[in-house]
């Protein structure tokens, strides 16, 4: 491994300050400085898959936008594959793939196949590489039946798979994923994770992903960075993030009528009651099935749902631990 490989992504004291103008009355405006990214430093070696997590507004997307060259940093030094993204945006663009969970990079009115053909010509992908990559993506992401469908008619999960394929057709060395599983159904999530794991393992593609879903991190990344208020709060192995192991899922149950808090369910405790609805917390690692049957056996159950642990909870716990 060369020096270049050990620090494939190099971030040194990078800052991004926005000036926000806010209307205060009819004419008067207030100017305020917002430090979206406040002195971040890290290195990512080639081929690593890193989770970049944090609450909303922590600076995750801003970091990704600086790494891709969309945004110019206000300070600090940033290199990807030895290239300064802000100065050499288009040169770097050939070597990276980007997926924005919230918006598509595909052409809204064109069928996927046409979008891919455009990507091929834009990135000048050799015919043989294009064919091999497309076949692989179509197979692993299950796109065969979607190729002739205009992007606007795809479901969110289908579109996301289509987007991920588009980002990988030109064999990028680094792949940025901004909330790739947001709003996806369970099957799509699983497919996307499986595919990303394979791309990382077999192609050696460096992957940086932001997410709200802790399961993404648990299943994909050995290394996690937690960012909050524009600063790196934690950078290390998943196991070091104690709170993940201790995090809890929530079973939300709707009972037939208002009842006193549910008791006597092993491994769960009632944390909230609101009319006929009650919230039960249980360890994230435990299965929900025995819990559900225990509740159903003892209480008049109408409906239920399971909430995954939230990044916000994990970070809150992290703060609590540091303080304590």
């Amino acid at each position, binding site marked *: 491994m060369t020096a270049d490989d050990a620090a494939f992504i190099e971030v040194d004291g990078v800052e991004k300050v926005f000036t926000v103008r806010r209307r205060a009355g009819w004419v008067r405006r207030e100017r305020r400085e917002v430090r979206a990214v406040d002195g971040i430093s890290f290195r990512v070696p080639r081929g690593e898959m890193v989770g970049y997590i944090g609450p909303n507004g922590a600076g995750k997307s801003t970091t990704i936008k600086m790494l891709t060259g*969309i945004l110019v940093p206000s300070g600090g030094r940033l290199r990807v594959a030895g290239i300064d993204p802000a100065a050499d945006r288009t040169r770097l663009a050939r070597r990276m793939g980007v997926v924005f969970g919230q*918006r598509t990079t595909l052409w809204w009115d064109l069928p996927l196949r046409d979008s891919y053909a455009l990507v091929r*010509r834009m990135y000048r992908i*050799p*015919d043989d590489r294009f064919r091999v990559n497309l076949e692989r993506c179509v197979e692993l992401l299950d796109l065969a039946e979607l190729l002739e469908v205009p992007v606007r008619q795809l479901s969110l999960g289908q579109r996301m798979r289509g987007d991920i394929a588009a980002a990988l057709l030109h064999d990028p060395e680094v792949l940025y994923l901004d909330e790739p599983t947001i709003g996806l159904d369970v099957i799509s999530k699983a497919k996307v994770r499986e595919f990303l794991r394979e791309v990382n393992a077999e192609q050696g593609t460096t992957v940086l992903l932001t997410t709200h879903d802790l399961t993404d991190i648990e299943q994909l990344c050995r290394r996690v960075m937690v960012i909050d208020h524009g600063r790196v709060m934690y950078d290390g192995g998943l196991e070091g993030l104690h709170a993940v192991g201790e995090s809890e899922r929530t079973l939300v149950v709707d009972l037939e009528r208002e009842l006193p808090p549910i008791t006597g369910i092993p491994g769960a405790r009632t944390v909230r009651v609101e009319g006929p609805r009650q919230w039960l917390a249980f360890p994230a690692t435990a299965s929900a099935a025995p819990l559900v049957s225990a509740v159903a056996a003892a209480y008049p159950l109408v409906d239920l749902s399971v909430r995954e642990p939230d990044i916000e909870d994990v970070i809150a716990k992290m703060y609590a631990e540091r303080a304590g």
Partner: protein
Amino acid sequence: MAEARADDDVRAHPPEQTPEPTPARATARERREAWGYEEATAGRGPRAYRGLRAYQGVRVYFLIVGMWVRSTMAYRTSFVIMTLGNLVVTALDFAVIALMFSHVDVLGGFGLAEVTFLYGTSSTAFGITDLLFGSTERIGRRVRDGTMDTLLVRPVPVLAQVAADRFALRRMGRIVQGVVLLGWSLAHLDVDWTWDRVLLLPVMLVSGAAIFASLFVAGAAFQFWASDAAEVQSSFTYGGTTLLQYPPTVFTTEVLRAVVFVIPLAFVNWLPALHILDRPQPIGLPGWVGFGAPLVAVACCALAGLAWRAGLRAYRSTGS
């Protein structure tokens, strides 16, 4: 440039230059070195790089345009209806002039054939630009909804992507109308076609289209700062072409000064056309001023290019 062109389309490679087929499971690095495309200009200085970018821009523009045309043609009936509709809407402009001339024989001292000449040249130049660059109007929406970012992660110039986005072939309607009326006016005008006048006609149309293009691009750049102010652009583009459909004698000297010295719309057709029609130039301008149109067009394009770069830079530092 030569390297870039040879690299443009892999299928265009002569056999001996075809890159070695790489195994499917090669590492990213191996593959990169096997193709080495963008290294074509490495170490060749900024001029080669800029040249490559300009070439890339044009190439990508036509790639995207081709895709849109094909997708438009998939709904042929809809396309025909839209083109006809477009033709009728633009024809309304001329309907006004026709209705006016049903009451008068001259407007501002210009007869119907002369006004139609102005109308035809203005519409043709504007139509060409509207077809090629009209989509830049939509950039404010992209800034607002954040899809601008998706253009910035691609390895091709943003302006080309913006201009080609949703390319609307139906805008041909305006060019068709402009050319037909221009042809009609030429048949009915009494012009002494000396060689300089013959030359000036195509030069005027091309320079005019370029001046309009610079207004479209500058207007798009403005939207990086004021993303919902797309209409300001229309006052110069659509407003400009409407203004130029009428004789300059109709307007006051303040208006004339503004469109000669501030926003040089007068060079799109008025000043060259006055030379062709053998009429005196307004506000004391010399007789040869119409020949300055190409220079003015080049200057406008350069300024618009700077405005675009400033706008993109502002966007990239604020992200909104």
